């Protein structure tokens, strides 16, 4: 194991600036920094640490502690170095007898109101107050409170026989960190981090002078009851033990750290895994991580407890049929059993009777091997990934229009946007760190347009408000996006120069002719979309004329029968307005899982080899054929829904499913279950006995992201290293397990480290040509394409022209989905996710995140609830033509009348028993976002839910290990 060398992790005191060079002298050393930089930061640049408490480089300077005072030649007094900007020729002295005396006095006062329990404090050794007392040479505290009452301090619970009215008990309500007011120095770093970094404004300073206290929410709130989203920014900013991770309190101060990448959403935040030996003490966002710039959310920062949860299965298990209990066996026996079964199925039912599902949660290297297993060992192209059910329309739509299946920008780009359009995404819940970066830009004055059936938090929250929220009826995305384009073309707001230079002009004129038709006008589409025409017109004008316009979209765009068409409509909008190829603009799919982008890049789709090259291309096949020594099938294989259909039909018999839970996450649960039940060998390779494993014959235990080496590629195409911080508890990294299976089926694979797999990827895939681990060690991360044409990688795509040559406008006619409301099912159900839970919840349900969301609930508009007699918290039955389930209702006007909403994080609810088998026309991405339903009062779980739970219980039985 190789620990990463941390380049420069020092706290520079104040944020970095950009500007003209300014040269000054600090303690006799010359330093040149950008204009606007603070004296404190300038000193830090040359390694001079000016003592400080209230300053930290994640938030703007505040100038309250006065510990950082300096002397500046020609200036009176002793200015605070954190709030004093540099000037050309400035001469600064950071250590004079005058400032030293002031600092000593300041520290003496601070320490006089601070407990001296350093030895038993959880922050011992990791406390800036302690460091500063040392730095200023504080040796004595003269201020001692009178013993006979009237005690004026905040830290002693009792004053003689009396209770100390200034003392406040520790707030331990948050599951992950504590707030101990006794240790607080009221530097307000936490308050500012909550505002500036996270953008939630949950914290404030209550009271004045000596009464000043940090407070979460109102006087009656604790941290858990407040607006706090538990992102950890305050804990990170706290210089003392006031806000402290419970894990550090329990386990002690970490002694080493390894840089790695979060395994939750597609933002792909960089973290320092802080360790004691092989025990993880805490995850701390890494300030040089280019996706997150030192920020985190509750999932990545705190919700890693699943890695050591008692439910984790660490031994391989097999069984002959799914009604039997599991039998724990050796790896050798499990792999032998799986290989023999899979080969047997091929002999009996044909080469194409088995397949794989690669994982968007596993590394690029692991995914590459799983698709290689299908193509080079199973000898078919039956490989698919869960991106099928989330962003496959992005691949198709952006591929058709721009020529590449990926977002166009990096996350830093949001700092330069003037108008952000969010379509079918809920970033504060789904991509929280990106949302914080966007909110920061919005507070600086950028405008926001939200297109979503629900009033999500980003529409209006502390200090941000969308200029326009277009609450469209689910299923009418194409009509709305086309109406925006109609206004832009009709009112001649398009960027003709850009279109003439970058796009195919003939296709544009055809498109313009099409979109100008009055049937696309907001006035005509209003009746079907429900979006007021006037708002839509204003929104279109704002996007077209408001400066840098960027579009961020999510699964609310793709998971529709016209998902691919909407993606193309979005691409049209960006091309029309010239919002491509520079900072602050672009088309940005927000990817659901950590490695959706990577899984797609690695050739997981049945029709594409790595690098999005169709299997029909002989020259592409030959690259892999020469390397692998096999013949690759030139015909596309089965996609996930096709595999399940074929299984029900009797021609698909065996599946190796790595790190996905298709039974819970895929639509139309009954159909998925029927497909799985019809297979003769289902191999589940996962951390837990997930829902799919109820139908499995072989269970191969997986390793967590903490237990393996590899890379993840995030939504901005950034390839980030995943580093092993502990040995796999199950014995093998996941790529090793796939290799064992391949070898047992006759392959001659000899990988000994994932770096060799990356080298193979680079050798075969043009966009990855220059990527290797040595380069990632040196640079931290790189965005593909990274090859001889772009040796430094590509933060922004299509800079001088589109990847496909000319950008292509595509006609996007609205075609209503077949899923329609009617007398039996009069409401539309749409589904989504929540901040504290992730996807099927297999990980987050096994952490204390459940305090925020213990069960899925159904959001119902009070109007729809009233006519059905539904009250807050009532059990309701949710039924569609596909199935029915019961859950609790919550009444909210976030949804409009006629629309209900729920999440799919819990198997007890199984929201997907309701969703149907309708799908995107181009890619078969399921239409999760529109299902016609009825809602009515119920007494509790349905018969089906009870039966399901019983079957799951039965299926999870494990026989005691044989002696």
């Amino acid at each position: 194991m190789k620990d990463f060398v941390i380049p420069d992790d020092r706290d520079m005191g104040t944020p970095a600036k950009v500007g003209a060079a300014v040269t000054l002298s600090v303690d006799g050393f010359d330093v040149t920094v950008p204009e606007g930089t603070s004296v404190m930061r300038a000193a830090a640049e040359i390694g001079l640490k000016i003592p400080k408490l209230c300053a930290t480089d994640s938030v703007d300077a505040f100038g309250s502690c006065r510990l950082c005072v300096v002397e500046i030649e020609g200036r009176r007094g002793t200015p605070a170095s954190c709030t004093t900007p540099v000037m050309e020729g400035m001469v600064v002295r950071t250590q004079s007898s005058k400032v030293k005396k002031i600092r000593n006095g300041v520290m003496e006062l601070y320490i006089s109101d601070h407990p001296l329990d350093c030895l038993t404090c959880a922050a011992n050794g990791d406390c800036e107050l302690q460091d500063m007392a040392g730095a200023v040479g504080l040796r004595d505290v003269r201020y001692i409170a009178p013993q006979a009452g009237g005690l004026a301090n905040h830290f002693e619970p009792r004053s003689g026989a009396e209770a100390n009215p200034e003392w406040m008990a520790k707030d331990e309500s948050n599951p992950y960190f504590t707030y101990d007011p006794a240790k607080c120095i009221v530097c307000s770093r936490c308050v500012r981090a909550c505002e500036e970094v996270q953008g939630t404004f949950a914290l404030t300073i209550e009271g004045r002078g000596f009464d000043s206290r940090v407070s979460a929410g109102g006087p009656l709130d604790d941290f858990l009851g407040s607006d706090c989203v538990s992102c950890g920014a305050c804990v990170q900013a706290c210089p003392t033990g006031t806000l402290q991770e419970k894990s550090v309190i329990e386990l002690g101060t970490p002694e080493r750290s390894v840089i790695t990448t979060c395994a939750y959403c597609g933002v792909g935040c960089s973290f320092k895994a802080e360790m004691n030996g092989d025990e993880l003490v805490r995850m701390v966002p890494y300030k040089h991580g280019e996706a997150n710039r030192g920020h985190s959310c509750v999932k990545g920062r705190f919700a890693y407890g699943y890695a050591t949860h008692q439910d984790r299965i660490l031994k391989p298990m097999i069984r002959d049929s799914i009604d039997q209990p599991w039998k724990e066996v050796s790896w050798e026996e499990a792999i032998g059993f799986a290989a023999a079964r899979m080969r047997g199925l091929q002999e009996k039912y044909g080469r194409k009777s088995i397949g794989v599902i690669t994982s968007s949660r596993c590394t690029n290297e692991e995914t590459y091997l799983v698709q290689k297993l299908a193509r080079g060992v199973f000898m078919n192209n039956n490989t698919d990934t869960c991106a099928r059910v989330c962003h496959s329309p992005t691949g198709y739509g952006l591929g058709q229009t721009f020529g590449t299946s990926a977002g166009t920008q990096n996350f830093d780009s949001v700092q330069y946007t003037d108008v952000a359009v969010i379509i079918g995404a809920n970033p504060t819940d789904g991509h929280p760190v990106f949302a914080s970066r966007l909110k920061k830009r919005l507070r600086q004055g950028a405008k926001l347009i939200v297109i979503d059936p629900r009033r999500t938090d980003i529409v209006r929250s502390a200090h941000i408000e969308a200029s326009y929220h277009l609450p469209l009826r689910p299923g009418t995305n194409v009509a709305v996006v086309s109406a925006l384009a109609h206004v832009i073309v009709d009112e001649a707001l398009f960027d003709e120069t850009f279109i003439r230079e970058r796009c195919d002009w003939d296709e544009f004129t055809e498109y313009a002719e099409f979109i100008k038709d009055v049937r696309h006008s907001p006035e005509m589409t209003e009746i079907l979309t429900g979006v007021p025409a006037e708002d839509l017109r204003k929104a279109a004008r704002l996007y077209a004329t408001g400066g840098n316009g960027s579009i961020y979209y999510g699964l609310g765009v793709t998971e529709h029968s016209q998902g691919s068409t909407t993606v193309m409509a979005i691409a049209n909008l960006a091309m029309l307005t010239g919002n491509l190829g520079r900072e602050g603009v672009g088309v940005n799919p927000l990817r659901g899982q950590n490695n959706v982008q990577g899984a797609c890049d690695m050739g997981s789709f049945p029709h594409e080899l790595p690098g999005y090259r169709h299997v029909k291309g002989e020259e592409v096949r030959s690259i892999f054929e020469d390397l692998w020594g096999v013949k690759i099938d030139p015909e596309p294989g089965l996609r996930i829904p096709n595999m399940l259909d074929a299984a029900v039909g009797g021609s698909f018999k065996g599946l190796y499913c790595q790190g996905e839970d298709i039974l819970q996450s895929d639509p139309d649960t009954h159909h998925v279950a029927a497909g799985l039940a019809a297979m003769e060998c289902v191999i589940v390779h996962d951390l837990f006995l997930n829902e799919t494993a109820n139908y499995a014959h072989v269970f191969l235990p997986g390793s967590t992201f903490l237990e393996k080496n590899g890379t993840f590629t995030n939504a901005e195409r950034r390839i980030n290293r995943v580093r092993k911080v502990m040995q796999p508890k199950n014995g093998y990294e996941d790529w090793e397990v796939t290799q064992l299976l391949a070898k047992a089926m006759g392959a001659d694979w000899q990988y000994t480290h994932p770096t060799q797999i990356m080298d193979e990827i680079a050798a075969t895939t043009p966009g990855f040509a220059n990527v290797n681990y040595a380069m990632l060690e040196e640079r931290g991360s790189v965005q593909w394409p990274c090859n001889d044409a772009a040796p430094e990688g590509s933060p922004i795509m299509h800079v001088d022209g589109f990847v496909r040559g000319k950008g292509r406008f595509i006609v996007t006619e609205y075609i209503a989905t077949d899923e329609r409301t009617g007398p039996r099912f009069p409401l539309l159900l749409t589904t989504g996710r929540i901040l504290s839970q992730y996807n099927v919840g297999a990980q987050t349900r096994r952490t204390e995140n459940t305090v925020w969301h213990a069960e899925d609930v159904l959001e119902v508009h009070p109007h729809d609830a009233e006519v059905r007699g539904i009250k807050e918290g009532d059990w309701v039955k949710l039924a569609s033509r596909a199935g029915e389930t019961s859950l609790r209702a919550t009444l909210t006007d976030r949804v409009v009348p006629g629309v209900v909403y729920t999440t799919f994080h819990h198997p007890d609810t199984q929201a997907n028993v309701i969703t149907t088998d309708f799908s995107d026309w181009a890619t078969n991405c399921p239409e999760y976002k529109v299902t016609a339903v009825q809602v009515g009062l119920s007494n509790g779980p349905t018969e089906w839910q009870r039966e399901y739970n019983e079957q799951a219980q039965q299926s999870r039985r494990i026989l005691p290990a044989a002696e």
Partner: protein
Amino acid sequence: MSHEKLTRMANQIASFFATQPGSDQAQRVAEHLKDFWGPEMRDELKAHAAADDSDLSPLVRDAILLI
């Protein structure tokens, strides 16, 4: 796979290309089917069309002749 499903998927593909300008819509439907459907699914569709193509859109019928 059930005929209804196969038919619905094929008709859905055709419904997109039917809206596209030009005169090669059937060709483009055929290309899409060849690029994204495995040969077994295409054969099933062809077999179904040979038996009874009344539930297939005209564009799908034309495309089937090209695959």
